[in-house]
């Protein structure tokens, strides 16, 4: 009997703590598969950030460091500038990257740090219980916007990848989605491109992954996937926002 699919060695044997229907598990798998396929697992250092993915170091089969809220790109900078031969990535949510960590992400891009950022955007603070994030959509209900996000009060959601596309030294920027197998395959290619960008010393790469938070959104897993497609993709269009040639 031929084995046609097996779990990537990029993941450990530890069962994840993620809620049913959460797409963090898919994102972890894609990162693990990409690093395995590129032969990088043994030469990679990952930076876990505050949020549901803080425990990603229990699940990803690479050396990892835990970072304070928003600071992962600065920590990754310190690592990469010490061991430039290693592959260094951050794995950050939108509460982390798009709110408290805006300075760190903008300036890592600004310096053209040769790191890869996996940016998981589920439009909410998941771990702390479903509060409004800068990425929360207009009208979306959260525990701190109980009547839905009012744009006249809280502004319009921040489009981080488009924003980073204005940073001259950012090298590779793509937004993908995890709501459907077809899109998951595209997301995997985006992650591979992000890591290749780093391997080829082309500088800062970021892959934004639109993700679900069924618990925070108050939806069942299937409805959450449908909500992502119907609401997030129109506001957060998929595609490549910046690419060096030949990546």
């Amino acid at each position: 009997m031929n084995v046609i699919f097996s779990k990537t060695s990029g993941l450990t044997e530890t069962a994840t703590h993620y809620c049913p229907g959460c797409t963090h598990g898919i994102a972890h798998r894609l990162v693990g598969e990409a690093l395995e396929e590129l032969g990088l697992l043994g030469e990679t250092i990952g930076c876990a950030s505050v949020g549901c993915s803080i425990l990603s170091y229990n699940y990803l089969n690479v050396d990892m460091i835990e970072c304070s809220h928003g600071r992962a790109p600065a920590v990754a900078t310190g690592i990469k500038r010490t061991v430039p031969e290693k592959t260094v990535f951050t794995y950050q949510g939108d509460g982390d990257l798009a709110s408290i960590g805006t300075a760190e992400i903008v300036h890592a891009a600004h310096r053209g740090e040769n790191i890869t950022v996996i940016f998981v955007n589920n439009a909410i603070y998941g771990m702390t219980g479903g509060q409004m994030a800068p990425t929360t959509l207009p009208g979306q209900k959260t525990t701190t916007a109980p009547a839905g996000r009012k744009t006249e009060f809280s502004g319009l959601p921040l489009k981080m990848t488009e924003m980073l596309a204005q940073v001259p030294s950012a090298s590779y920027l793509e937004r993908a989605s995890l709501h459907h197998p077809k899109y998951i395959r595209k997301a995997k290619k985006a992650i591979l491109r992000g890591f290749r960008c780093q391997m080829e010393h082309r500088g800062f790469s970021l892959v934004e992954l639109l993700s679900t938070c069924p618990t925070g959104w108050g939806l069942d897993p299937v409805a959450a996937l449908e909500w992502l497609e119907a609401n997030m993709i129109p506001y957060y269009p998929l595609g490549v926002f910046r690419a060096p040639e030949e990546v």
Partner: protein
Amino acid sequence: MTKTLMKGNEALALAAIHGGCTHFFGYPITPQNEIPEFLARELPKAGGMFLQAESEIAAVNMLYGAAAAGARAMISSSSPGIALMQEGISMLAATEIPCVIVNVMRAGPGLGGIQPAQSDYFQMTRGGGNGDYRIISLAPATLQESAEMIQEAFELAQKYRTPVFIVSDGMLGQMMEPVELSKSRSKERGTEQPWILTGHHNNRAPRTIKSLRLDPAELEIHNLQLQEKYERISQAEARFEAYREVDAELLFCAFGSTARIVKNSVDDLHQKGRRAGLIRPQTLWPFPSLAFRSLPKSCKAVICVEMSCGQMLDDVKLAVEGRAPVHFYGRCGGMIPEPEELSARALDILSGDAQ
């Protein structure tokens, strides 16, 4: 070795290179700017790496990443910048990452001023970040001692797997003095140590550097292990200089640049026929309480002198434990005490007019 006339901040920076510093992350703030400026120029020539961060918050997190990857890394700032770094310093203490942090103190609170002060004593000895942790705080009083202490700081950081503070101030940073520098230490990255992140090379389990422990029993164990280490440091590393203390009737306590001024006052009082002495803590944490355990029988009073409104005073009182009255004299806001005002205050105390 010959002596070189150098500015304090530059002597500190050069001594750090000689002490094997390989990575420095800087952010501009007065009065410490000569440290990043010097290292931007000189550290790459010595095979090291200087990087300017976008903020003190980023600088301390870059330090965390670099040291976690095995670098002999250092940052410097001044008081408000150190306040910004405290989140990262708590993290460095929790994760037991060896590194060196220089504070060239200026007056506060808030943005305060840019003149010398010692009002960061609490910030340097009482945490500042969250949680139960301690940071070794070395307080030099001369440029020579600054140069020696920064080299020692890297050794202590490695020995105990802990961040170490150098507590300088705007006076020590900006003054010029002859200093003799020694090339001392190796620049080897300690990549063989079992906690450094190197990538697992597919031949060992992945390593994690972390502070989060959601199980309270596990977190308590981690805290108690840290406390055990701090106790070892307290026993082994507290140090002070005693000056003319043997038969002193009045004992000054002062650290850093203030202690130099106090020495003038001690000599002045002896010329006036009064026996004064000085205890100068060289480590602020661990505080050298031992120096106050057996006060000379002649000692009628202790006076703590600081360029602050009275912070080390708490530690002096705790160390004296009521064996003698403890007085205080402080200048603040960037004002520097003169030996004459200290002598006058001392004579008031000795004549019983202290209050």
